C-alpha cells in the first residue's frame, strides 16, 4: 500500500539547508496499521507530508498503492494535530467539507456522514462550532471528517497528544474499532511509546535529524483492547525505549 524507498528531504532556508530525512525506507501493507516514532523534531511530520502529497520536493521513491505519490490523491485522508478543523464551520459543515469539495452533496453522502457522527458519539453536536467542544470531541470530529471522504489510507500526525490520558485511550479505542471495521491502512506519527505499541501493527523507529530508520518492530499483538494490559505490550514498550535511548544518546 505504502512503499517508501531512500526518501530524503532537505529544507532550504535563507542561509542554511536542513536535512530532515535521509534515506528513509519502509513499507506498509494494505489494511495494516503502522506507527512511526522518533524523537521530537526528527522529521516525522515531514514524512507524513510527503505521504499526503503535500510536500513534493524530495528525492527517492514513494508509491501509494503502486502509483507515485501525488497531491490530492482522493483516497488519502490526513489528520493534523491541532489544526484539523475550521473554527468558522460547525461540526456538521466540517464533516461534510471533504465530500463537498469533491462536488458530492447527494442524500446518500449526508446519510453516510450522519452515520459517522453517530458512530463517533457526535450525533447531537452537529450544530456546534469547534470552539464549543472539548479537545477529545474536536479530535473525534477530525476523525469523522477524514473518514467522510471514504479513504483507504489514513495519515495521522500526533492526533491524540494534546489530550488527557483517559480521553486519549478512549480515542485510541475508537480508532482501533474503525480500523477493524473498515480495514483501512493507517499510518500514525507519534512520540508516545505506548501509543505506538497500542496502535501500530508495525512500528518504524526513526533516528534524530536527519531521520533514518533505525528499526522496524513487528508488533502482532495489536488489535484488541486487552493488548494494553498484556505482558507482551510492556515487552515491546521497553524494546522501543531502548532503541530510542541508544539513538538519542
Amino acid at each position, binding site marked *: 500500500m505504502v512503499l517508501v524507498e531512500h526518501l530524503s528531504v532537505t529544507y532550504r532556508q535563507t542561509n542554511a539547508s536542513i536535512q530532515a530525512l535521509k534515506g528513509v525506507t519502509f513499507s506498509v501493507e494494505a489494511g495494516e496499521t503502522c506507527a512511526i516514532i522518533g524523537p521530537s523534531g526528527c522529521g516525522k511530520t515531514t514524512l507524513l507530508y510527503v505521504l*499526503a502529497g503535500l510536500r513534493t520536493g524530495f528525492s527517492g521513491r514513494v508509491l501509494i498503492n503502486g502509483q507515485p505519490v501525488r497531491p490530492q490523491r482522493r483516497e488519502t485522508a490526513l489528520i*493534523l494535530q491541532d489544526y484539523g478543523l*475550521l473554527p468558522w464551520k460547525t461540526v456538521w459543515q466540517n464533516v461534510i467539507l471533504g465530500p463537498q469539495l469533491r462536488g458530492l452533496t447527494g442524500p446518500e453522502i449526508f446519510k453516510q456522514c450522519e452515520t459517522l457522527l453517530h458512530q463517533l458519539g457526535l450525533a447531537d453536536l452537529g450544530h456546534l462550532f469547534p470552539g*464549543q467542544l472539548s479537545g477529545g470531541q474536536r479530535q473525534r470530529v477530525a476523525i469523522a471528517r477524514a473518514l467522510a471522504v471514504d479513504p483507504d489510507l489514513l495519515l495521522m500526525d500526533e492526533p491524540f497528544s494534546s489530550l488527557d490520558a483517559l480521553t486519549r485511550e478512549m480515542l485510541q479505542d475508537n480508532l482501533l474499532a474503525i480500523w477493524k471495521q473498515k480495514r483501512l491502512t493507517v499510518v500514525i506519527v507519534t512520540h508516545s511509546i505506548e501509543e505506538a505499541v497500542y496502535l501500530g501493527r508495525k512500528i518504524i523507529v526513526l533516528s534524530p535529524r536527519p531521520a533514518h530508520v533505525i528499526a522496524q518492530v513487528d508488533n502482532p499483538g495489536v488489535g484488541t483492547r486487552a493488548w494494553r494490559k498484556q505482558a507482551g505490550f510492556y515487552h515491546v514498550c521497553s524494546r522501543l525505549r531502548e532503541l530510542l535511548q541508544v539513538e538519542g544518546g
Partner: protein
Amino acid sequence: MGRRIIVYLIAIAALIGLWEVAAVSLQMAAFPTPVIAFAAFLQDLPHGLGRDLAISAWRVSISIVISLVLAVPLGLYLGREEALDRFFAPLIYVTYPIPKIVLLPVIMAMCGLGNFSKIFLIALTIFFQILVTTRDAARQLERPLIDSVTSLGANKWQVYRHVIWPAVLPEILTALRIASGTAIAVLFFAETIASEDGLGYYLMDAWTRCDWADLFAGVIAMSILGLAIYMTLELIERRVCTWKYL
C-alpha cells in the same frame, strides 16, 4: 440584543447630559445646549438637512463598497502569493503613509468638483487601510489549516473560499469599522471645498452664517451617520462571524 440597545441608549443619554452641563456652565453662543441643537436639527431635517444627510450617507457607503471590492481580493491574493507580494509590498508600504487627503486639489483638477472626486478620495484613503489589514491577516494564516483542507481535495479557489476568506473576514470588518471614522472625516473635508451639498457643505454654510444651532444640527447629523455605519458593521460582524461570539 435588547440589552445592547439599552446600553447604547444609556451611553447616548450620558453624552447628551455631559453636553448639557458643559453648555450651561460655558454660556457661549458658539456652544448651544442640546435642546437648542436638537430643535434646530428636527426643524431643518425636512428642509435640506435630511437631503444633505442622505447625500453624504450615499457618498460614504458607495466609497466603502468600492474600496472593499478592490482592496479585499487584492489583499487576500498578496497575502498568500509570496512572489507577487515581494514586488507589491514595498510599493504599498511607500504609498500607504502618504496622506491621500493632500491629493484633493489634484483629484479635483482631474475629476471635477462633482461626486466622483469626493468618492474617489474617500475610497482611495480607506482602500489602503483595508488592503494592508487584509494582506497582513492573510499572511499570518496558519499553514497547517490550509494543508488539512488541501489534503481533503480542495483546489486553490476552494482554499480561498473555505479557509482564507472566512479566516480574514473578522479582521476586514474590524479594519472597516476603524476606516469608517476616517471615511467620514475625509468626507467632511471633501464636502467643505467647492461643494454645494452634503453635510460638510451644510456645516460650512452654518459656520459662515454664525448660526451655531444649525452648526450643531449638522454635527448631530454627522454623528448619526457615523454611528449608523459603525453599528451596521458590528451587526454584520455578529451575523457572519457567529463563531467568534460563542
